């Protein structure tokens, strides 16, 4: 670990959306004295992105991955917590600093079919960020960048329009556009998911190579653990707004600790007819992000459910491991009487979401995440 501050650091980052849809809702809430309900899309996420590191964020649809990414780039204002860029909180940024921040943070979107302006030639698409940031460039720089992302010969591509490119080529242009301002960080939102398998492999290999060559860090968001594992040094598993497990890729895959991570890994089909895969045992679907259960948000689907799960789990490092953190009550001792850690009787699997009124063990010393510092 270096003494340098991480390129990007998230401290208990939160983004809650108010679900009141208008004036009437607000008045009704006032009159009835009820709090407006929130969608807790990102709820206390901690992450440290070091230089030249690639971190993956995975989770099911609706778990808040894309909201997290949008908050990182500053499209959403966080409603809580802090986002630090090279140790400097973005909340104190001036507008010039924001502009500089956006030069240093490149973006690659999910859908190359819609993220490029159909009326911009490749040349214009790639030079636009440079123009906006008033950076000097020569045609040779653009050509070099296009060749870097595998669009060779570059002259052939400069004058083309997105409609003349295949999906993979479009995504290469999008990557070139993201890298042209020489950013420190690339934020990639499922950059390979819209592409065919053969093209997907190309883009994954390309991103792998480029992060090495350019020495950039990357946050890579995806729902597909098998592609994430090709790219990322570390993986964060997200469930309903929280990171439930964070570990180096190999550790996470070979020794997943959180029951949710275990289920995710067990659910991935293996391209081998000889392999006998044990199917995941969890049922249901992610719950409703508005009325989330108290405590651990996964508890209603969890095969290991205990009574103590009604408390918010702390981030802990499981015994015998380093550099691996998991938010699950299974992995630390609770100074409680035995009854509260015993398994809850078999419960019917529900579709999740409903708030269960479990008995809250009193006197728990578990410190909720985000308040521990």
């Amino acid at each position, binding site marked *: 670990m270096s003494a340098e501050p991480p390129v990007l650091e998230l401290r208990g980052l939160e983004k809650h959306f108010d679900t009141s849809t208008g004036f009437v809702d607000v008045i009704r809430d006032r009159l009835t004295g009820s709090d407006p309900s929130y969608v807790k899309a990102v709820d206390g996420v901690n992450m440290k992105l070091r230089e030249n590191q690639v971190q993956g964020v995975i989770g*099911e*649809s609706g778990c808040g991955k894309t909201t997290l990414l949008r908050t990182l780039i500053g499209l959403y204002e966080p409603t809580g917590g802090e986002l630090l860029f090279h140790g400097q909180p973005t909340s104190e940024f001036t507008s010039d600093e924001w502009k500089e921040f956006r030069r240093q943070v490149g973006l690659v979107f999910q859908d190359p079919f819609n993220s490029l302006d159909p009326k911009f030639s490749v040349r214009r698409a790639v030079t636009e960020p440079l123009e906006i940031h008033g950076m000097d460039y020569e045609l040779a720089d653009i050509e070099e960048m296009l060749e870097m992302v595998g669009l060779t010969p570059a002259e052939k591509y400069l004058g083309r329009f997105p409609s003349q490119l*295949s999906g*993979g080529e479009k995504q290469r242009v999008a990557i070139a556009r993201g890298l042209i301002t020489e950013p420190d960080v690339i934020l990639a939102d499922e950059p390979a998911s819209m592409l*065919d*398998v*053969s*093209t*997907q*492999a*190309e883009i*994954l*290999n390309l991103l792998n190579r480029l992060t090495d060559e350019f020495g950039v860090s990357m946050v890579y968001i995806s*729902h*597909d*653990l*098998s*592609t994430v*594992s*090709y790219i990322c040094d570390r993986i964060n598993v997200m469930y309903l707004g929280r990171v439930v497990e964070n570990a180096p*890729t*190999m550790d996470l*895959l*070979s020794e997943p600790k959180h029951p949710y991570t275990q*289920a*995710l*890994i*067990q*659910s*991935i*089909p*293996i*391209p*081998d*007819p*000889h*392999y*006998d*895969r*044990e*199917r*995941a045992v*969890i*049922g249901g*679907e992610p719950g409703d992000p508005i009325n989330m259960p108290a405590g651990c948000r996964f508890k209603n689907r969890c095969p290991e459910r205990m009574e103590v799960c009604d408390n918010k789990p702390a981030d802990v490092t499981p015994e015998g491991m380093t550099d691996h953190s998991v938010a699950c009550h299974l992995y630390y001792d609770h100074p409680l009487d035995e009854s509260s850690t015993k398994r809850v009787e078999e419960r019917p699997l529900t*579709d999740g979401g409903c708030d269960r009124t479990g008995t809250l063990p009193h006197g728990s010393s578990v410190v909720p995440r985000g308040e521990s510092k």
Partner: protein
Amino acid sequence: MSDPILEFDGVDIEYETRGGTAVHAVNDASFAIDEHDYFGLVGESGCGKSTIADAVVGGLDENGAVTGGEIRYKGTPIQDYSEKEFNKNIRWTEISFIPQSSMNSLDPVMKLSQQAIEMAKYHTDMSKDEAVERLRELFDVVGLSESRIHDYPHQFSGGMQQRAIIAFALFLQPSLIIADEPTTALDVIMQDQILDHINDLKDDWEISMLMITHDISVVFENCDSMAVMHGGQVAEAGDVVELFDHPRHPYAILLQNAFPDVRYPDRELAIIDGHPPQLREKPDFCTFADRCPWSTQECYDGAPDPRPVAGDEEHLAWCVRADEMEELAADHLRKPEEEHSILEESQ
């Protein structure tokens, strides 16, 4: 081996386009699905796999038509059936269809029970009560709560809608189900549950399935036999295990290696350069030749004929160099050592 339930015999499918030209979406496609077999059809977007599914149930777009060859269902050619004949003899009663986007294929303003009654009315002489009762049973089969049969589709999540569609597909006890990307829109965990249900059907319902997907791992896990398509041509077809152990068409070989396997995150992924040709003319060459690292002049001199692999008539590769592939693609055919797998195998 039982008799094939569905046979494709040299089938050509064309879409007419404006200006009198045509797109030759499927060319000389031949394969057979045995009774009680799960058959996987794999290929990238635009290779013609969904066109094949549509053709089986007579659901091609208006400008599309089967222009050559024969599609036989239980031995009877069906490609020239009229709309009426398809409705009477094939659709739902014999072959049912699980479409790609389940979210859009249920009627949003009709209760699910009402949709079942409608289907019963057109295809059977079941009474309303019988139809509802049958839907209730099927909801149980696919793991949905029976109390929800009177719900509207929007009250269901994506995974539940997909289950409801499967229930409808089973409604009239068809012999064959065509599933076009049944799980593509779903999250991994839900995908796994749905596939698990689909797998259970094989034993309990004695059905056959044509499963169309771009995800080769889904086919390897769930199907008995498969075909790989590229650019409107079938590249290789045969038993799943055979095709995994001894792929002989370059595209089938590279496709396998391009697929990320979570057990081996360090493995280099194969890259398939280029893209398939536009099929304005009926291709009289191998459509993979331009992308193939091992192509020769011969590949452009006519569409390849199927060759049995190692004398196995059930395992066919449409490649002129199929016999040489073992040597040529030796680097690609080497499987990763199992000890390097980072997952523990459950046994």
